């Protein structure tokens, strides 16, 4: 296998990890974000929390792994995106701090105020990262203001507030709503009676809204967001020459991949279809279908962003030539190869034992079960 193929595989693998993160951690974040919305009393909120209690921690490792894989496979992208989006990343981090504590500590003290505080902590801890990840993608699509100096030190020239532009905020709202919807579809699978009915209703409304925002964002991207294209030849088999290419910014450039390979239109199309199917399935109480179509939809949203930008992963608006692409911001061939082998061994294993853990914990939860096991459950 040559360097070029490995680079392409790692673009796919990073995508797989990100999709793994939104599909698995997405639903537990969604459930936690809905605590105060769908849970009318403590028992109901405990049903919601315990529906995700055995799994949220494993799910969150998709995020940790995506971070680690970014570090190993695309070190310069990891360095540039994490330090460039510093304040946004810190806010995400502060929010993520709250989740393990909320899950583990909430039921440890029998007090209404204590529980309510942790409910808010869980809501914030889940909703804020969902929002910020969307905002970050929205900004990646518009280019990020950074450049490298002569020893390849990264300098970020933007401000935190500039990240909060209308297009990025729309992407943030889409990200938040699709994750909330995903949480609602999971609750359809794991709860009974009122809670289940409320989740169905919510998805029936929310999923079409997600579809609409997704389409709107696409139209906006086409009409008003300039894309990037590489105009020099990149040696896809050679050492990274991250700053030596020429890059053109032009209207509609994010759509050139679709012109070249029309089959790619399947990604956004399946995204929209997934949301619509999810709404339909929720209405007709086909809970498994609702969850699967929601998973499909959010996976396709991530994929759409990825293929639109391909081969870019972090375009630079300050010095377009310094944009990071999946050809020239990667780890060495040796590291990519080792990490590829490691991923081939462990990703299937992870999927296997994760599936087993869901199988062990299968079935719906109700309030009676919570009351009967009050001291051992969250």
């Amino acid at each position, binding site marked *: 296998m040559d360097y070029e193929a490995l680079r392409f595989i790692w673009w796919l693998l990073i995508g797989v990890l990100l999709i793994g993160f939104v599909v698995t951690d997405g639903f537990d974040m969604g459930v936690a974000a809905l605590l105060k919305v769908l849970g009318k009393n403590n028992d109901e909120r405990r049903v919601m929390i315990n529906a995700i209690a055995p799994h949220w921690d494993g799910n969150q490792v998709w995020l940790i792994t995506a971070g*680690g894989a970014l570090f190993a496979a695309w070190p310069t992208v990891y360095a540039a995106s994490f*330090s460039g989006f510093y*304040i946004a990343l810190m806010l995400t981090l502060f929010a993520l701090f709250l989740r393990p504590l909320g899950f583990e500590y909430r039921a440890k003290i029998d007090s209404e105020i204590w529980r309510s505080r942790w409910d808010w902590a869980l809501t914030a801890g889940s909703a804020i990262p969902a929002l910020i990840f969307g905002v970050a993608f929205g900004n990646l699509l518009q280019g990020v203001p950074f450049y490298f100096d002569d020893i390849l*030190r990264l300098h970020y020239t933007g401000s935190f507030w500039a990240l909060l532009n209308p297009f990025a905020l729309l992407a943030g709202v889409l990200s938040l709503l699709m994750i909330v919807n995903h949480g609602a579809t999971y609750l359809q699978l794991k709860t009974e009676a009122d809670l289940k009915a409320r989740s169905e209703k919510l998805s029936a409304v929310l999923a079409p809204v997600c579809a609409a925002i997704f389409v709107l964002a696409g139209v906006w991207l086409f009409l008003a967001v300039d894309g990037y294209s590489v105009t020099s030849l990149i040696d896809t088999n050679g050492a990274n020459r991250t700053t030596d290419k020429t890059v053109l910014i032009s209207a509609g450039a994010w759509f050139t991949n679709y012109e070249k390979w029309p089959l790619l239109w399947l990604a956004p199309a399946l995204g929209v279809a997934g949301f619509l199917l999810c709404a339909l399935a929720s209405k007709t109480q086909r809970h498994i279908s609702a969850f699967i179509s929601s998973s499909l939809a959010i996976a396709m949203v991530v994929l759409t962003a990825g293929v639109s930008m391909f081969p870019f992963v972090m375009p630079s608006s300050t010095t377009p030539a310094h944009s990071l692409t999946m050809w020239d911001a990667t780890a060495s061939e040796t590291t990519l190869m080792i990490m590829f082998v490691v991923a081939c061994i462990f990703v299937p294993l992870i999927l296997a*034992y994760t599936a087993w853990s869901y199988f062990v914990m299968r079935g719906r939860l109700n309030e009676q079960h919570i009351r009967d096991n009050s001291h051992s459950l969250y």
Partner: protein
Amino acid sequence: MDIVDLSRLQFAFTAMIHFLFVPLTLGMAFLLAIMESVYVMTGKTIYRDMTKFWGKLFGINFALGVTTGIAMEFQFGTNWSYYSHYVGDIFGAPLAIEALMAFFLESTLFGLFFFGWDRLSKEKHLAVTWLMALATNLSALWILVANGWMQHPIGSVFNIDTMRMELTSFSDVIFNPVAQVKFVHTVSAGYVTGAVFVLAISSWYLLKGRDLPFARRSFAIASAFGLASALSVIVLGDESGYELGDVQKVKLAAVEAEWHTHPAPAAFTVFGVPNEQTQTTDYALKIPAVLGLIATRSVTEEVAGLSELKEKHLQRIIRGQEAYVLMTQYRAGDKSPATINRFNEVSADLGYGMLLTAYTDDVANATAEHIAQAVEDSVPKVWPLFWSFRIMVACGVSMLVLFAAAFWHSAKRTVDKPRWLLKFALFSLPLPWIACEAGWFVAEYGRQPWAIGEILPTHLAVSQLSVSDIWFSLGTIVVLYTIFVIIEMWLMTKYARLGPSALHTGKYDLESPANVKEA
């Protein structure tokens, strides 16, 4: 304070708080697996209750370990972006493997450990617990492979075109002797922490005369596990000393306040007051030959002193200056064979040349003063290392004595342990944490001025952030962590006081009818 100081402060704070929770997780995971094994083998429910009760405390601790761990993984990118770019090709791999191989397994099984009791057979649940413990330790292995590489970077080479270090031999990185020794030393320290924790709290129940059968069994398991672990920490600590003598001479010299090279075999300074001005150790109490034996395993080899090491650094900084200048020329377009050949000759000292960038932007024309300053700063301050090392060792020895006494009384099956022993155990509760923090301080502060030993200076490794950005993040982290730690300690104390009654099985002292009224 500038961005370098602030970034270091933030890293030190987050790492040290993170490591309040890690060692207990490492140790408790195995203790839980041992307790549950006894349950499965004997069928006695008291051992299941032990697993569940100590598991509750484990969970309270684990949550904050996860919380503070997320910060660790993000921080390399957020605050150390040049570091991430410069060594990510090597350093990123063990971190990613840690997540794929260990952290996924640990986190998935963590859920089943707590919620799978009624859904899994006894044997399957036991397997879950053991695998969770194993994964926790595998996690530590990969993190220490990464850290070991920072201390002793091997298996990699500088690539001038990509302007970073690149991996040449992954097996060298994994079997890095520093990493291997550190791994066993660190996980053993974790086992000791878990054992002291269980021993101290069980002793408290025994002192109070509460839940005696439960407390005695916990005491016995902790004392046996603790004794084995404490011996392992100390033996492996000694092995670390040998590795330092081999590959991290500066750290060893600073830890031992070896200002000058003395004729072999070097003496070990038990106590003294290091004096940076005079470059001597006042009131030194020395044992002849011991340091030579620890560090070189011989009586004829010398242990290098700081002043001699600095002389070597001077030579390397001068060569490094040349390497840095050639590197700049090359990157500016001068790709003549002469430049490349000469660069390859001196490139091993490039890191030393980079040290100069802390004092001047114009490395080519660095003055003699700049160079002298760089030499002076090429070794860490002595007294913080000298003292934290001795604090660590003193705690370690004290815990070894504790476990020896505790194990003796457990093995003799003394029904009523002597009160002095129980009090000794109770008051030893903070010792493992003090030892762990002091040990990490030695490892990390002792590496200064380097982020990656002799390759990348700390001051260059930071992200180019604004001071206010880092004040914001550091301030918020300090406030949040303080609140979290207070909540955690409070919950921990509350549940430790409640004891096994927290399980609501109806079998334990605080739940019996006589006590319900009291409570």
